[in-house]
């Protein structure tokens, strides 16, 4: 049941709050290509390509297509592609098409998911992050 998912991890843990550097991708902004950071990204605009980040928040008006690797992922907008997130949170307004590789996941009532939601052990994400670093 849902409460069990939140046993070790309150919504507070997965919430993406203010940290040192937050990159804001505004409403009118479109990025085509790759985005790399160890910090946090808030997306209100459009991203076509790949993102690697510490934390990512895709806002209700945001859209992303491509691959996403992040420790903490919160989706409230539309996403098309693959998510590799250790902790994933889908808001009620989320629309995700594709796969969500996760270690922990919270899905709010109303979120739309079209695709698979495979679970992976924590070390899977470590190797993944490492591989991406080498790539870039």
């Amino acid at each position, binding site marked *: 049941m849902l409460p069990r998912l939140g046993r070790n991890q309150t919504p507070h843990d997965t919430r993406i709050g203010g940290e040192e550097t937050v*990159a804001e991708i505004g409403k009118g902004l479109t*990025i085509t290509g790759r985005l790399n950071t160890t910090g946090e990204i808030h997306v209100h*605009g459009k991203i076509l390509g790949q993102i690697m980040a510490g934390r990512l928040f895709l*806002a209700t008006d945001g859209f992303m297509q491509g691959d996403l690797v992040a420790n903490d992922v919160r989706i409230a907008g539309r996403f098309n592609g693959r998510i590799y997130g250790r902790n994933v949170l889908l808001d009620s307004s989320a629309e995700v098409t594709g796969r969500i590789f996760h270690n922990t996941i919270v899905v709010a009532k109303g979120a739309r998911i079209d695709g698979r939601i495979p679970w992976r052990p924590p070390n899977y994400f470590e190797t993944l992050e490492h591989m991406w670093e080498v790539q870039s």
Partner: protein
Amino acid sequence: MNMFSRSDRTLDLNSSSLPGRPKGELPASTTTDVRPAQVSTQAAGQTAAHKQGPSIISKAVKVTGQVESTEDIQIDGEVLGDIRGNLIKIGKTAKITGTVYGEEVELAGTIDGNIEAKKVVLTSTAHMSGDLVHQELKVESGAFVNGRCRPEFGKAPEKNVHPVKPATVGREQTVLQNSGNVSASL
């Protein structure tokens, strides 16, 4: 657990009363029972709403590819690729490899590539190697510029498109425009 079941209820209300999304738009008609959960779910969204305004590509961020915007952008990170926008502020810590197109460009960082903008400001920490196409230019002392400066923003394409047209008329016009611009910018 408690919180979870509560927020669950908010969402339920939300979906039944409003076809749209954000929890922030819920009318005050919801029961008091629901409110605390509302606050907690809103928290992250609120921070996002506060910061809405210019787009920021912060220090630690590296972008490989195109950046396009209809709004203002502040860049403090690294960009490999072209940037298009309205007002583009390039901070001290920024490193850009590619062309920057905009209405207004303020450079305090490093660019390896061209700038094409109506109004260009190079601050004292600016470092650029590449050509500048502008209409208005401001250079502060200390700025490093290695390249050509051409006050031809918005004119070059016209010449290329109509190279066969009677030259005299076109030239007179451009000369007039030029003189106007010079006086305006001085």
